């Protein structure tokens, strides 16, 4: 269900802030910046149905975000906010986009180009901080950030694994993978047997009808 349409001024404020943040971040990942520049002068529309909001991404020297575009976009991604948030959380956005509920219209190459570039976004935080603090402090902070980032990633993965084991083994709410596979295999065999039986009955019926 679409929410009440957002005030245009609020949308503009959000877009300006987001645009500044993205361009600032891209400055510290020249490889991705180059990939995005290669998409110029194309326009990608992102239609978030939940918010009744369409954001137009204009590729160029810098990324520009607009709430309205007079010329039609080269490609449109449409979906609910949850689908886009889900996509943003995946590392491999290219694969995630293919599997998601987001609809692609127009040049899928453009949509995939953006997904591909954002998957590889690795911001050089150290370079960003060194502009403010100088290289020595930036290196120390960078090391700490990298260590924290690694810890955060490991902890997140461990939490995910432990949660799965707890639900399966302790609470016994879900079956083990092997158990599940065996059950599904049995169901599949049964399905095939039933189909064969159905075919046999059909053949017998056909014979009985023959004079």
């Amino acid at each position: 269900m679409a929410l009440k349409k957002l005030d245009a001024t609020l949308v503009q404020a959000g877009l300006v802030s987001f645009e500044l943040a993205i361009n600032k971040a891209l400055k510290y990942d020249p490889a991705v910046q180059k990939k995005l520049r290669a998409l110029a002068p194309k326009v990608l529309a992102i239609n978030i149905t939940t918010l009744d909001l369409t954001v137009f991404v204009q590729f160029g020297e810098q990324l520009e975000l607009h709430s309205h575009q007079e010329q039609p976009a080269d490609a449109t991604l449409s979906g609910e906010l949850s689908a886009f948030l889900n996509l943003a959380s995946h590392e491999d956005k290219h694969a995630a986009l293919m599997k998601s509920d987001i609809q692609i219209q127009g040049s899928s190459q453009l949509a995939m180009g953006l997904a591909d570039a954002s998957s590889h976004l690795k911001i050089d935080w150290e370079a960003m901080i060194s502009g403010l603090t100088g290289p020595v402090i930036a290196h120390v902070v960078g090391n700490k950030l990298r260590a924290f980032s690694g810890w955060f990633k490991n902890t997140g993965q461990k939490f995910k694994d432990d949660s799965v084991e707890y639900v399966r083994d302790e609470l016994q709410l879900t079956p083990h993978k092997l158990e599940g596979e065996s059950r599904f295999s049995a169901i599949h065999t049964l399905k095939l047997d039933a189909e064969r039986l159905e075919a046999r009955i059909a053949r017998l019926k056909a014979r009985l009808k023959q004079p």
Partner: protein
Amino acid sequence: MSDDKTTHFGYKTVREEEKQGKVAEVFHNVAAKYDIMNDLMSFGVHRLWKRFTMEFTGVRRGNHVLDIAGGTGDLTMKFSDQVGPEGKVVLADINDSMLKVGRDRLLDKGYSGNIEFVQCNAQYLPFEDNSFDVITMAFGLRNVTDKDMALREFNRVLKPGGRLLVLEFSHTKNPLLKKAYDLYSFSALPMMGKIIANDAESYRYLAESIRMHPDQETLKGMFKDAGFANCEYHNLTGGIVALHKGIKP
């Protein structure tokens, strides 16, 4: 009984020929501090309103654009980048003080080549018929003495298919917002004008002229009467400002 035609100057009724001089006086007074006052008075939001306007212009490389009442050249600067060296942008204003501030600002920022500066009255544009692809007027129409005449002039100088965009203060229908806005514009605005530009009167005129300006639907009707098609408007900040758009058929 006098035959003189009258018009509004804020809440006052003045003779038509008087209004232009009075408006000129206001803008001569505020020109030097126009940008800083705009930022302070609108908390910087006027930049978002202008950004929204730019999205509807559909300007392309090589286009001819008229930024009428362009003042200090906020929109002209963006148009100059968009039309490129093969295009042309005319920054026009009736007030020479505002035009000088705009011209100096643009030249200081390195903008030249595809920009022309013209001092003119929106009611009597010194341009040939069918000359422009886009005309924009940001916060200028309410100061024009004969708005219908100005709209007809815009229609004349636009190319067929060209678009007019008028960004102007308008009327909010939200009672709570209206109350807060009235309080702000009749108390805080003149006080800020007094402190920063040492000129409370000019800023009182600003608040009064906004209230006397036609509302969204009336202005849309005026667009149609002037010969524009596909007329529409978009409210911004709850209707405090509205962007009107019309296409010359």
